[in-house]
C-alpha cells in the first residue's frame, strides 16, 4: 500500500545524480517525503516535525550535498538518526533484587497478560530464573483464569486471589509468596486502564509504593495512533516507567508509535511481541524498527535471523554459496531439517526474498515439506549437488523411491532452480555488507525485478500460530 521511501527518494534524486549537484530545494523536497513517510507510519505529528528538523540540518551539510549519491546518503542520514533515536544500548532487565519485581502496565487489550506469560517463559529459559506470575487484574472477567491457564501451560507458578478487590493487598500477598517460594522474579499482571483515568492510575502508584518494583514496563500496541504520545507521557509521569514492550508486530502496522513513545519517555524499548504464542517475544532491534517505520528494505534482519538459527560457520558457508550460486539441494535439505526443528520453516522461507513463488508453487505446509524432504532424500548425493543431472530416467527413479508423481519431482527441481537464481541476487547484496553487518547506503536491492519486502519483521509463523 505504501510507496517505499527509497523509491520516492529515487525519483527525487534521479535526475540530479546525473548532473551531480544537489540543491537545498531538493533536500527540502526530500525532507517533505521523510515527514510524510513518518506520518504514514503513525509517528506523532509533532514528533515527526522535530525529527525532520533535526535531520534537515545534517542533510544540508557538505557530506550529503557533495556526495556522488546524495539521495542514498540522505536516506542513510535519516535512517541513522531514526535508529539512534529508537535505540541506544539494549538495556537488560534489572534483576538485581530477589525477588526482582516487574509490573506490566498499559491500556486495555494491549497485550499485558500475554506478555507476562512470554516474559516468564523467557526469564526461565534464557536466564534460568524461577518466576512467579501474579494475577493483579481484578477487573476484567476471567483475567485471573487467563494467568492461571498460561501458568499451567508454561508450568510456571501463579499467585491469585479471588477473595479481595484490593489490588495492593494482592500485590503484597504476591511478594510474600515469591519470598516463600524463593522466586528470583515476580511478574505482576495488572488491569488495563486509560492513562487519563486518574483513580486507576493512582491505584498503580499505590502498587508501586507498596512493592518498590525493579521494572515498570509499559506494554503498548505497535499499531497505536497519534495518541501514543499522550498514553506514554501520562503513564510515565505518574509512574516513571523503566521500559517499553511493543506488541503485535506480527501485524503490518509500520509502528510509528515506537518512535513517539520512545521520544516522550526516553525509556528503552526492551522487547517486541511478534505473535500470540508464548515463544513470540524478541529482543528489540532499533535498526529494524527504523527501516520498518521508513518502509525500507531490511536485508540486515534477514541475515541476522538466518544467522541466529544456523550455526555461525555454516551461515558463512551459506552466504558464500549464495554468492557463488552453488547452493544445492543438499544444503536445502540440511537447512530444511534444521528449520523444521525450529518450527518455523515458513517463516524462514519468507525471509528469503523471492522465495514466495517457490513457496506458493509448492503450496507449502508442514506436510508438503515432508514430501519435499522425501523427494530430496530419494536423490543421490550427486543429484542433490547438481539437480541438472536429473534426466527422465533418474527423475522416474526418484519419484518411485519417494512415492510421488514424476511431475512433483520436476516441479521441485524447477522451483529450486528459480530460487537459486534469486538467491544469487541476494548473495550479491550480502557481499556488499560492511563488517559490522550493515549495508552501506545502497539502493534497494532488486531481486527478480522487484524490491525486497520491507517488512521483514512480519515473520509469519503459519499453522496454528
Amino acid at each position, binding site marked *: *500500500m505504501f510507496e517505499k521511501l527509497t523509491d520516492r527518494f529515487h525519483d527525487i534524486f534521479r535526475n540530479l545524480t546525473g548532473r551531480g549537484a544537489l540543491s537545498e530545494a531538493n533536500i527540502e523536497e526530500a525532507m517533505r517525503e521523510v515527514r*510524510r513517510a513518518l*506520518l*504514514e507510519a*503513525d509517528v*506523532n*505529528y509533532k514528533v515527526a516535525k522535530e525529527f525532520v528538523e533535526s535531520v534537515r540540518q545534517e542533510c544540508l551539510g557538505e557530506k550529503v550535498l557533495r556526495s556522488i549519491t546524495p539521495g542514498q546518503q540522505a536516506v542513510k542520514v535519516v535512517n541513522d538518526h531514526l535508529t539512534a533515536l529508537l535505540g541506544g544500548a539494549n538495556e537488560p532487565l534489572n534483576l538485581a533484587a530477589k525477588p526482582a519485581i516487574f509490573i506490566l502496565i498499559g*491500556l*486495555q*487489550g*494491549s*497485550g499485558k*497478560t*500475554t506478555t507476562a*506469560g512470554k516474559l516468564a517463559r523467557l526469564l526461565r529459559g534464557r536466564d534460568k530464573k524461577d518466576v512467579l506470575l501474579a494475577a493483579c487484574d481484578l*477487573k*476484567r*472477567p*476471567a*483475567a485471573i*483464569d*487467563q494467568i*492461571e*491457564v*498460561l501458568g499451567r*501451560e508454561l508450568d510456571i507458578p501463579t499467585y491469585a486471589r479471588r477473595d479481595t478487590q484490593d489490588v495492593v493487598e494482592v500485590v503484597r500477598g504476591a511478594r510474600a509468596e515469591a519470598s516463600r517460594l524463593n522466586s528470583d522474579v515476580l511478574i505482576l499482571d495488572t488491569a488495563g486502564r*486509560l*492513562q*487519563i483515568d486518574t483513580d486507576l492510575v493512582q491505584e498503580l502508584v499505590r502498587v508501586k509504593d507498596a512493592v518498590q518494583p525493579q521494572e515498570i514496563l509499559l506494554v503498548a*500496541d505497535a*499499531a*497505536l*495512533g*497519534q*495518541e*501514543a504520545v*499522550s*498514553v506514554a507521557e501520562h503513564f510515565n509521569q505518574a509512574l516513571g516507567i523503566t521500559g517499553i514492550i511493543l506488541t*503485535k508486530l*506480527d*501485524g*503490518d*502496522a*509500520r509502528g*510509528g*508509535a515506537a518512535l513517539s513513545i520512545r521520544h516522550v519517555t526516553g525509556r528503552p524499548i526492551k522487547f517486541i511481541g511478534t505473535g*500470540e504464542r508464548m515463544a513470540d517475544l524478541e529482543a528489540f532491534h532499533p535498526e529494524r524498527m527504523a527501516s520498518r517505520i521508513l518502509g525500507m528494505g531490511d536485508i540486515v534482519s534477514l541475515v541476522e535471523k538466518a544467522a541466529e538459527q544456523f550455526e555461525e560457520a555454516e551461515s558463512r558457508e551459506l552466504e558464500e554459496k549464495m554468492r557463488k550460486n552453488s547452493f544445492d539441494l543438499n544444503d536445502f535439505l540440511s537447512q530444511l531439517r534444521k528449520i523444521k526443528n525450529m518450527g518455523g520453516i515458513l517463516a524462514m522461507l519468507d525471509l528469503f526474498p523471492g522465495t514466495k513463488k517457490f513457496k506458493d508453487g509448492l503450496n507449502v505446509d508442514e506436510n508438503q515439506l515432508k514430501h519435499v524432504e522425501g523427494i530430496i532424500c530419494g536423490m543421490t548425493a550427486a543429484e542433490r549437488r547438481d539437480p541438472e543431472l536429473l534426466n527422465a530416467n533418474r527423475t522416474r527413479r526418484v519419484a518411485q523411491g519417494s512415492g510421488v508423481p514424476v511431475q512433483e519431482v520436476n516441479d521441485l527441481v524447477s522451483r529450486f532452480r528459480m530460487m537459486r537464481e534469486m538467491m544469487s541476487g541476494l548473495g550479491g547484496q550480502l557481499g556488499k555488507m560492511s563488517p559490522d553487518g550493515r549495508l552501506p547506503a545502497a539502493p534497494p536491492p532488486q531481486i527478480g525485478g522487484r524490491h525486497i519486502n520491507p517488512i521483514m519483521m*512480519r515473520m*509469519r509463523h*503459519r*499453522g*496454528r*500460530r
Partner: protein
Amino acid sequence: MKSLFSIFKNGLQKTATSLVRGVQSVFTETKPWTAEDFEHLEGLLIQADLGVVTAAELVNDLKERYDRGKIATREDIRRAMAEDVTKILEVAGAGNPFTPAAKPPTVVLLVGVNGTGKTTTAAKLAHLWQQDGLKVMLAACDTFRAAAVEQLVHWGARVNCPVVAGKPNSDPAAVAFDAATRARNEGMDILLVDTAGRQHTRKALMDELGKIARTIAKACPGAPHEVWLTVDAGIGTNAVTQAREFSKIVPLTGLIITKLDGTGRGGSLVPICRELRIPVRFAGLGERETDLQPFRPDFFAQALFEVKVTGSP
C-alpha cells in the same frame, strides 16, 4: 439520562478541544488565509488519526470553498469540516442495529484484530438486545486465547444470556456450527458469535475465519447476516488496512468503534468509510455492559469539531 450528543461530546472532548483551539489559533478572520494556515489545519486532522491522504483531501476541499468565497470565518471552517466528515460517515446503515433475518436467528459475527474489544462488545450487544426483549444467545468461538471462553461465560452470567462454549483449542468452526444449530432449534432471535482476535497478516487464521463463516451458513442458510469489525479508537492508520483485509475474507456489514472513552479519537473511521463504505453501527465507551451507544455520524463529526447543533444541550 445524558443525551447521545453529550455522550459523544464527552467521549471526544479531549480531541475536540485541541482541534478547535488549533483551528482558532490558525485562522484569523482579518488576514487572508495562507497556504501555511491550511497546512497547519491538515496537521490537526492528521493528529486526529484521519491519515495523510484523507486529511489532505478534506483540506483541499476547504481551500477550494474558501477560494470561491463560500466560507470565510473560523466557525465556517469547523462547520464545513464537520459536514465533510459527516458525509463520509453517513454510509447506509450507519447507527442501525441490524437487519433481522427473514428466518431467525439473525447471526452476527464479531471479528477483528487482537484486543480490540470483541468479547466485551458481544456482551454489551447481548445486554442491549435482551433489554429490547429479544432472545439472544452467545457463542464463544475464541478457543485459542487463554481463558477467552471463560471470559465470555462470565459475561453471559453477568448479563444473563446463554453461552454456547467450546473446549479450549477445539475447532472454532465446530463451536459456531453447534451454536447456530442450537440457536435455531431453541428459537433465538439473535446469535452473537465472538471470535478469536487475529492479525490480518496471518493467512491461516484468516482462512479459519472464512471457514467459521461458511460453517455457520451450513447450520443457518444465509448466515452470518451481519459481520462486524471492532475498531479500536486508539489505533492509527493500520485500522484501514485491517478493515480492508478482513473485508476480503468476510464481507463486512458494519464497524464498531471501541474505547472511544479513551483519548484515541477513532479518526481512522473516516478513511475506512471513505474507502470501503462500511457503516459504523455502535460506539463502545467503557468497560461495562451499558457502555455502548448507537453510532451517530453527525454527532461524532460535530463533537470532533465542536459545532453547536440546534436542540442539543
